């Protein structure tokens, strides 16, 4: 799809105007924010939803009878509904568990569902392109249960290697994979993987931390079982995330953390856990953050996730082409070279310049890119890299961002000549 097609309904310039952070000046230059894969920049509507909450409605949720406690509860429970609609959860708001981020969501799956359903020899199949959030919790579970953690290899062209998948699926109880790689940009075939998992009698969990902000998400259509994502990567606030799981699965999961809110009863000799998503939400939840996340979801819905995806696709094609032609091979992209089934994450390997130095030099131009292993060390090892300098797009990105990126990369290349 060409940029022109969306122009009537979606305007990246408008998104940019809505985003206060993009007025920043850094080292004498207007900011060029290319780190949305790390954390996205919230629009004014999200920031104001949070302020408005604290100024007008703040109270602890649940168990309140007074007016503002009801308002706070309505905001909090309303956020659950907004999110359920955004991902098309078949069971609605009751399937939305608030966590503090993708990482906590995976720990919840591992320690609640995993500890209850997996034992020695059972296999959790992840992939070599997973973020640590979808690796370490399984290693931790392995320590206590003796499960096996197996890895789907990644091909030389940066895709999941599914050539041997039926073999890999032996003994697998859970297939847990990312919807979109935060290093490579690779978009994985989730609906297909769900079919494979179910055919083998396994469940499938999807790390949607990246994908949910850049592609339309429909858990009903993709037929997955668990979905985890973070507010701060989808124009929302820090401190909040989501675990979605099918109602039947959630219903049988034991509690995760213990405390107030997640119980029906506590005696000096034991406790009875609550039903529904609150069973997994011990303690005072992220209430203001839920208001912010609901605003983010409304904002993204108004943009239209298909338009966001198409816009970022256009930016990615343009950037891939120009990086190739400008630097004739001195800047290598660690990720699929063709724009098919890939998102706007560009991991750069600049010949002779360490990613740390790339990022430092780019900062002088106001360009924000992130150097490092991006919490995906097994993937870095797979490709023999210690780090990359990663540039990534958001709905507010423009081709002019790529212009500045290329200008600054030119300086890096010439400085280290």
């Amino acid at each position: 799809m060409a940029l022109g097609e969306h122009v009537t309904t979606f305007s990246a310039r408008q998104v940019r105007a809505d985003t206060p952070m993009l007025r920043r000046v850094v080292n004498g230059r207007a900011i060029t924010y290319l780190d949305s894969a790390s954390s996205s920049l919230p629009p004014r509507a999200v920031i104001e939803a949070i302020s408005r909450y604290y100024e007008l409605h703040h109270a602890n949720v649940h168990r309140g009878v007074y007016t503002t406690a009801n308002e706070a509860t309505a905001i909090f429970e309303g956020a659950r509904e907004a999110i359920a609609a955004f991902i098309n959860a078949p069971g609605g708001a009751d399937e939305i568990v608030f966590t503090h981020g993708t990482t906590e969501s995976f720990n919840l799956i591992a320690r609640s569902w995993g500890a209850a359903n997996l034992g020695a020899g059972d296999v959790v199949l992840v992939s070599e392109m997973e973020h640590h959030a979808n690796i370490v919790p399984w290693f931790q579970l392995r320590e206590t249960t003796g499960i096996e953690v197996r890895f789907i290899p990644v091909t030389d062209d940066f895709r999941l290697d599914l050539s041997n998948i039926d073999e890999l699926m032996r003994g697998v109880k859970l297939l847990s994979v990312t919807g979109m790689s935060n290093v490579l940009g690779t978009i994985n075939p989730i609906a297909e993987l769900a079919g494979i998992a179910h055919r083998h009698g396994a469940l499938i969990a999807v790390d949607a931390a990246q994908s949910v902000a850049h592609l339309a998400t429909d858990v009903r259509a993709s037929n997955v079982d668990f979905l985890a994502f973070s507010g701060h990567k989808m124009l929302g606030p820090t401190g909040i995330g989501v675990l979605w799981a099918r109602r039947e699965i959630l219903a049988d999961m034991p509690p995760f953390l213990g405390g107030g809110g997640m119980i029906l009863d506590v005696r000096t000799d034991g406790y009875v856990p609550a039903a529904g998503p609150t069973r997994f939400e011990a303690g005072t939840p992220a209430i203001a953050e839920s208001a912010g996340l609901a605003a983010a979801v409304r904002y993204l819905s108004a943009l239209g996730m298909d338009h966001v995806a198409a816009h970022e696709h256009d930016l990615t094609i343009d950037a891939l082409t120009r990086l190739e032609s400008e630097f004739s091979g001195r800047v290598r992209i660690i990720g699929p070279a063709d724009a098919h089934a890939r998102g706007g994450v560009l991991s750069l390997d600049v010949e002779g310049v360490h990613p740390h130095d790339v990022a430092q030099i780019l900062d002088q131009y106001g360009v924000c890119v992130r150097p490092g292993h991006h919490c995906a060390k097994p993937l870095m090892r797979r490709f023999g890299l210690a780090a990359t300098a990663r540039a990534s797009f958001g709905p507010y990105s423009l081709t002019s961002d790529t212009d500045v990126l290329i200008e600054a990369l030119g300086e890096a290349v010439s400085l280290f000549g």
Partner: protein
Amino acid sequence: MSNLDDLYREIILDHYRTPRNRGELASPPAVRVEGFNPLCGDELVVYLNVDNGVVTDIKLSGHGCSISQASSSMMSVAVKGKAVVEVHAIIDRFKEMMTLKERSLDDQGEPIILDLRTLGEIAALAGVVKFPVRIKCATLAWNTLAQALADVAPS
């Protein structure tokens, strides 16, 4: 980009492009210590031979950014052949340089004058203090060296 020039002095780029004392030493007898900067993934291995209180040989392997690589390369040059007591003094002076950060006056309000000449070409790393996140890159080699000296069996 004058700021960048402070950071990327020609001598630093030279050590980065042509690192000195790369390689390994048989261990034992050499002391072998790994240094690690989790923030950027830099890894450094220092091999150190000390005889009669003198650093007789040093080799480095690993990978990292220009600052950490140049710093380790310069360090190896500065300490090779030096007495251990002298090496400790160099480490101290280097660390002092890295902690100056934005401070330019001492507690009495007098300008701090660090005699960079005693550091030789290592003084080129002084510009790093303007980039606080990079200080860890510059100090990695020195912390690892200090660890290696501590590991040398008392003679």
